[in-house]
């Protein structure tokens, strides 16, 4: 390995660490909302504190309970979103690519700007 290889690896790892720290700074508060979008359009927002199930266009079913969100059911073959661990922190998301459903947690106070900066 040459010296530049190490610089490259170190640079990328440093960038990853910085990005990671920025993400961790945004912690979920009580006002955190669950935002669902389908095909890029906003489908609806729901409070993270309130337990409920949300049907998304008969293709997905989302379960909000105990301050965490998980995909309960999806009609797609790969089931990646259903097997995804439940999410609770600001900025975390569950994405169902076949149905183009994006479920993400946003802090009511600083959602928009954080989302773009990230």
């Amino acid at each position: 390995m040459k010296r530049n290889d190490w610089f490259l690896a170190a640079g990328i790892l440093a960038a990853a660490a910085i990005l990671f720290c920025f993400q961790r700074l945004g912690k979920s508060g009580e006002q955190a909302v669950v935002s669902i979008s389908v095909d890029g359009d906003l489908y609806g927002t729901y409070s993270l504190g309130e337990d409920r199930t949300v049907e998304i266009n008969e293709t997905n079913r989302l379960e909000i309970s105990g301050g965490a969100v998980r995909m309960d059911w999806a009609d797609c073959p790969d089931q990646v979103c259903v097997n995804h661990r439940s999410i609770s922190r600001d900025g975390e998301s569950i994405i169902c690519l076949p149905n183009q459903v994006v479920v993400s947690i946003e802090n009511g106070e600083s959602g928009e700007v954080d989302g773009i900066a990230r």
Partner: protein
Amino acid sequence: MKNRATYFGVFTALALIFSYVETLIPVNFGIPGAKLGLANLVIVIVLYKTGFKEALLLSVTRVVLAGFLFGNLFGILYGLAGAVLSLAAMECLKLRSSFSVVGVGIAGGVSHNIGQLIVAMIVVETYQVGYYLPALLVAGVVTGTLIGIVCREVLRRINNVTLV
């Protein structure tokens, strides 16, 4: 010319076998889309032994064939973006003699992940997928280093073999 077609066929078969072997290994990094990138071994070796054009052709052929065989249309879309971007990055680093094969491998692994992430952002029209960026960067460095080291050893051993 006859030999070129033969070699290309052999390398395509080899890359496809690596893609298949990869589907057999249940590596789960906890991140969707993260995998070892075994097929990149063949791509990097072709890039070094023949050239950019052959490697690009091989890469695209492999992604399309592997997509139809083991994946789906979405997979092909992601794979193509990753493959083209990673090959471009690897060629750039290869042209600068200050990087070794390992550096080229790292650039390939990382840019492959970035390419897929960009397509994911376009497909789902959200920046939220960027949440995976740090994890994918680290995964790219790790897998890229491994692939790069294996490539270096292979290239050292086939140093006196000339392809086309």
